[in-house]
């Protein structure tokens, strides 16, 4: 089992009344950055890096970052900058980028160089995920939403070629054109860093990942439709002539551990306060219906069961619309938030692992209105009690991660001693 740590790095500012524990509703594209305070943000950015470094000390296998634009719920507008810092400071954990929003950049060659540098500086610890991005990403960097999927696929093919084929070569594609591809930076890992794909909604993306034997990570989706989506991955893999397993699938969800049940509940409720991501299942927030339904961004017909469930819950119809929040109690009841002391949390995590059988999991913590102290208490208890217990459960349930069993071949990977990565 591969165990990662994630937080979305919200911009918490109690003084504005919009953010933090005050919980005023926000909607995409309606909040001006006039109120953005770089001095406050400097503290937050360093806090989130410090928490990642501590997560490695506490035994996490992966430090996960994501990227959004033009929004207060995620400060990682240039995630590769954060990844670069972690590449130098941390020693052992994988740096898991889920992921770079490849369709929204007109120059994927710059990503080839950035990611190669991160992989070299970290001595080969980069996991390079791709995402298609939400409507706000297409709007913010003004890239055609109707070509999102075409650009995603072409950028992927281009980056892989630039990483693996000696230059110089020419690339004349539909969306990208280069006359001289010859980056003076190549990945440390051969043939290239692992590519993973996180997702929420798109059937096209999941099936593409399964076809390419790329691990797929479901982000904070409800358990039953997540299980259905995982089955679709396994079925697609079988159609393409290989047997996928837990090593091909991952799940990210909210897990917070605390010293007492009372403290855990009080802190857990902070998940849905503050500027949390309205796009992901279970967050409170007001979605901008035009943004989540940007023309051509996601096929209106080819959505996953996760999205169908969310749509049905709202009375159906309306295409790929946003996911509205559900009460804290309901999220606790359906395990999309797990919150408590180690003693009560571990059996619930076991239930999730038994039910959907992922090989990779990510605990999403320290978010919403949670403070640094909240995050650090949880990280310590995860390291001391939860992670060791989860590793035992995963062994018992036979849930190998993608660094134990090769997702492309199903073959066991010999453990290699940690490299000296100073």
């Amino acid at each position, binding site marked *: 089992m591969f165990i990662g740590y994630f937080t979305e790095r919200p911009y918490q500012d109690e003084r504005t009344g919009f953010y933090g524990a005050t919980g005023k509703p926000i909607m995409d594209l309606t909040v001006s950055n006039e109120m953005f305070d770089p001095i406050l943000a400097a503290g937050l950015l360093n806090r989130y890096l410090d928490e990642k470094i501590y997560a490695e000390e506490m035994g996490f296998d992966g430090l996960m970052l994501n990227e959004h634009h033009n929004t207060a719920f995620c400060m990682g507008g240039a995630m590769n900058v954060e990844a670069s810092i972690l590449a130098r400071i941390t020693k052992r954990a994988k740096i898991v980028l889920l992921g770079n929003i490849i369709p929204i950049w007109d120059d994927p060659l710059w990503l080839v160089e950035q990611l190669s540098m991160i992989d070299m500086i970290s001595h080969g610890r980069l996991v390079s995920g791709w995402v298609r991005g939400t409507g706000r990403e297409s709007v913010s960097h*003004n890239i055609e939403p109707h070509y999102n999927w075409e650009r995603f696929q072409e950028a992927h093919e281009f980056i892989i070629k630039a990483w693996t084929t000696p230059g110089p070569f020419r690339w004349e594609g539909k969306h990208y054109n280069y006359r001289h591809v010859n980056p003076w930076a190549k990945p440390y890992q051969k043939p290239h860093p692992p590519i993973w794909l996180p997702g929420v909604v798109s059937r096209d993306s999941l099936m593409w990942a399964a076809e390419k034997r790329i691990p797929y990570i479901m982000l904070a989706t409800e358990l039953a439709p997540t299980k259905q989506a995982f089955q679709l991955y396994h079925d697609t893999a079988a159609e393409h002539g290989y047997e996928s397993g837990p090593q091909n699938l991952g799940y990210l969800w909210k897990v917070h551990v605390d010293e007492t049940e009372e403290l855990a509940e009080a802190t857990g409720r902070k998940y849905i306060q503050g500027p949390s991501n309205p796009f992901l299942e279970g967050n409170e927030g007001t979605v901008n219906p*035009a943004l989540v339904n940007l023309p051509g961004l996601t096929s209106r017909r080819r959505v996953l069961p996760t999205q169908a469930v969310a749509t049905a819950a709202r009375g159906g119809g309306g*295409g790929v619309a946003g996911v509205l929040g559900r009460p804290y109690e309901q999220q606790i009841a359906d395990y999309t938030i797990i919150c408590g002391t180690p003693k009560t949390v571990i059996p619930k995590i076991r239930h999730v692992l038994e039910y959907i059988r992922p090989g990779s999991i990510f605990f999403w913590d320290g978010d919403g209105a949670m403070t640094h102290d909240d995050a650090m208490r949880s990280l310590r208890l995860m390291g001391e009690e939860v992670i060791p217990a989860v590793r035992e459960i995963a062994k018992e349930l036979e849930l190998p991660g993608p660094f134990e069993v090769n997702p492309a071949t199903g073959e066991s990977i010999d453990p290699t001693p940690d490299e000296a990565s100073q």
Partner: protein
Amino acid sequence: MATSAQIWSEEIVEAAGGAVQLVKGGDGDPLLILHDELGHPGWLNYHQALAQDYTLYIPSHSGFGETVRQEWIMNIRDMAGWYLEVLDDLGLDRVNLMGISLGGWLAAEMATMSPQTFKKMILVGPAGIRPPTGEIFDMFLVVAKEFISKGILDPDATSEFSTICPDEPTPELVERWEVAREEASRMSWRPYMHYPGLSHLLHRLKTLPTLVVWGKEDAIVPLSAGQVYQENIKGSRLAVIDNCGHHPEIEKTEEFLQLVKEFLAA
């Protein structure tokens, strides 16, 4: 007019390499109407009135309605070039041309490519020019219903408003809007709803009689863009209708028809 017998029909024709949805009706000299960014809204009062004197040809653009999308079309000028072949295949030459909003932009691009194909041109609140003052309203940052409402100055006084924007749109209508939004995006995402070369290319239209109609309170495409059209097409006329939004053909149908009929008959 609404109670008279239906004088239009809809068919799928083969043209320019694919199936094209074509609404056709009326009697007289052909008048080609290019629909706006949300597709053909159905047969409206102004269609019925013009069909008394003209044979209306209302195709759906590539990808809109039932017309098959030509995947190679990546911008408005690709669309314009493709459309000229559609006209060839429909046998339309020396034809009167009317375009509304995005369809007006398309009409202007087609005319600059092939002025001799057209007899007279009517542009109704056309996009296509970056307005010297103001900005073209971003249709992609609102849902379709909100966009339509923004285009009408006074919905309560507009009898056909509930036709083009019902309170409870049918699933079929919602689907038509969503398809249209995606296709409009393919034409106009960046630069948004304009082509920088168009104002210069318009100089070629000095021999094409042109009427530009604008609602004075147009909140979608600012009137200042209309002035650029008028200034760059020598001999053209800009007719501005008071107390009117982006769709004079719907909001001020009588005034609109009077202008158009006089222009076409002259």
